[in-house]
């Protein structure tokens, strides 16, 4: 047993072998299931990515819509109310919000499935849980950016020239807000893929995070290793894409 796991080698030797194998795509076998841990992890990857990307997209788009609507509204109350709701939402940890949604929509109303990933309907509650958190986050960011550009000279110039308010917001304030927020969003999206661990536990979602926690509780470390490596790779890929996106969106950055 010890020999087959290579435990007789020195620590440095074990780590060196891990690196060599990792580069070749071999992250070791799961101790419990004696299949390749990388295969186990990759099998879970789609579910994790789907949940993260859909929640992010829904949250990001709705945040933009709400922020623009708030900016266009003539009553400042609207903005204040939206921000207060965002604060309330952020004061509820995601896992707790998920349980409350399950309570209301599955247990009481019996409308939506609470656990597992079986149909399109299964997505509703987890996505609602995560995306509301994302909305609150990005609404806050967009709102802060708008509040700053609202008093800027270029906005006042445009308004003084007679450009309609909606056009100023959508053509000037929004693009200027978008650039820095996309950088933040890139990092956040990467973090989200691995950060949904607890949500996956609540909804019994067959994602990466749950696999890693199972790996931890069953002391099946090759799984944990493979999971962390895969999440790191996903993170790097996402940030690379964001950098490319940045080059497309920002007129000041042009790829040579």
């Amino acid at each position, binding site marked *: 047993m010890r020999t087959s796991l290579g435990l007789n080698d020195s620590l440095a030797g074990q780590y060196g072998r891990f690196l060599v194998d990792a580069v070749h795509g071999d992250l070791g076998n799961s101790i419990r299931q004696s299949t390749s841990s990388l295969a186990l992890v990759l099998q879970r990857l789609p579910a994790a990515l789907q949940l993260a990307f859909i929640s992010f997209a829904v949250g990001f788009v709705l945040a933009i819509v709400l922020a623009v609507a708030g900016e266009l509204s003539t009553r400042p109350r609207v903005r204040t109310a939206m921000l207060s709701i965002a604060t309330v939402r952020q004061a509820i*940890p995601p896992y707790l919000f998920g349980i409350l949604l399950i309570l209301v929509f599955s247990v009481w109303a019996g409308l939506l499935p609470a656990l597992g990933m079986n149909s399109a309907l299964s997505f509703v509650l987890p996505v609602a849980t995560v995306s509301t958190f994302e909305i609150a986050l990005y609404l806050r960011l967009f709102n802060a950016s708008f509040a700053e550009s609202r008093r800027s000279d270029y906005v006042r110039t445009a308004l003084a020239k007679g450009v309609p308010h909606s056009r100023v917001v959508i053509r000037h304030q929004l693009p200027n807000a978008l650039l820095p927020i996309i950088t933040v969003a890139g990092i956040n999206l990467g973090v989200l893929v691995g950060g949904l661990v607890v949500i996956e536990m609540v909804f019994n979602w067959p994602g990466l995070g749950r696999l890693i926690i199972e790996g931890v509780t069953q002391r099946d470390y090759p799984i944990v290793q493979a999971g962390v490596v895969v999440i790191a790779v996903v993170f790097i890929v996402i940030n690379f894409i964001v950098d490319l996106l940045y080059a497309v969106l920002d007129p000041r950055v042009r790829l040579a």
Partner: protein
Amino acid sequence: MLAIVAVLVLVVPFLPGFDTDTQDLGDNLLAPLQNPAHLLGTDALGRDILSRLSVAVRVSLLVAFGAVLISALVGTSVGLTAGYFRGRIDTVLMSIGDIQLAIPVVLLLIVLVATLGSRPLLLVVLLGLTDWVGYGRVVRSMVVSLREQEFVQAARSAGASGFWVIRKHLLPNVLSQVVILAAFEIGVVVTIESSLSFIGLGIQPPTPSLGLMINEGQRYLQSNPSLVFVPALAIFLVIGGIQFLSQNVGVRRSRSTT
């Protein structure tokens, strides 16, 4: 909101019938307000929820305060060092921060707790060490602009060492921002700690904790939703109270300075 929390933590332990551990399997799963001996009802093992809640909030806050203290200390030191000395040490420290920011905190903590264990004190340290980057960045950016200010240049010209400038000028000038951030971060740390406890990797039973109470209550969602509601409300009061407080302080400050 924080007043309710204060009553819960400070007054409840002195009420008659305060008892977190006595099990009463005959009187288990009592709903709130049914038995004057158990105002908020009892859990699956018949333990008094009000008492457990009081202790759980206290534990959560203690862990959060401790962790925030550590992270504020580490982050502020890093920010002052990086911002004042710039150069290579700045690049190194901030790169470490960027990398840490890119790792999901909960995931990182899960792996750390799994390898190192989850004794309460260790948990405080781990939470503290994974949450310093925010302070580091804020302090660094303030220091970068402060150090170019003429009163810093004047102090240096009068022979002040880096240590003198940092201690006498930079630290006092960033401190109020650090305090505001720390107030906000208490809510964040409570969230993270309760998430960890929820998946069984945070505070270990029999010590009551909010996350664990919710996890246990989840099983009785259909029959006794109050088992989830009560700790949920407590978490909301703690985090929401802190958030509203720190936002109001922030707004008031920005109004008074402009």
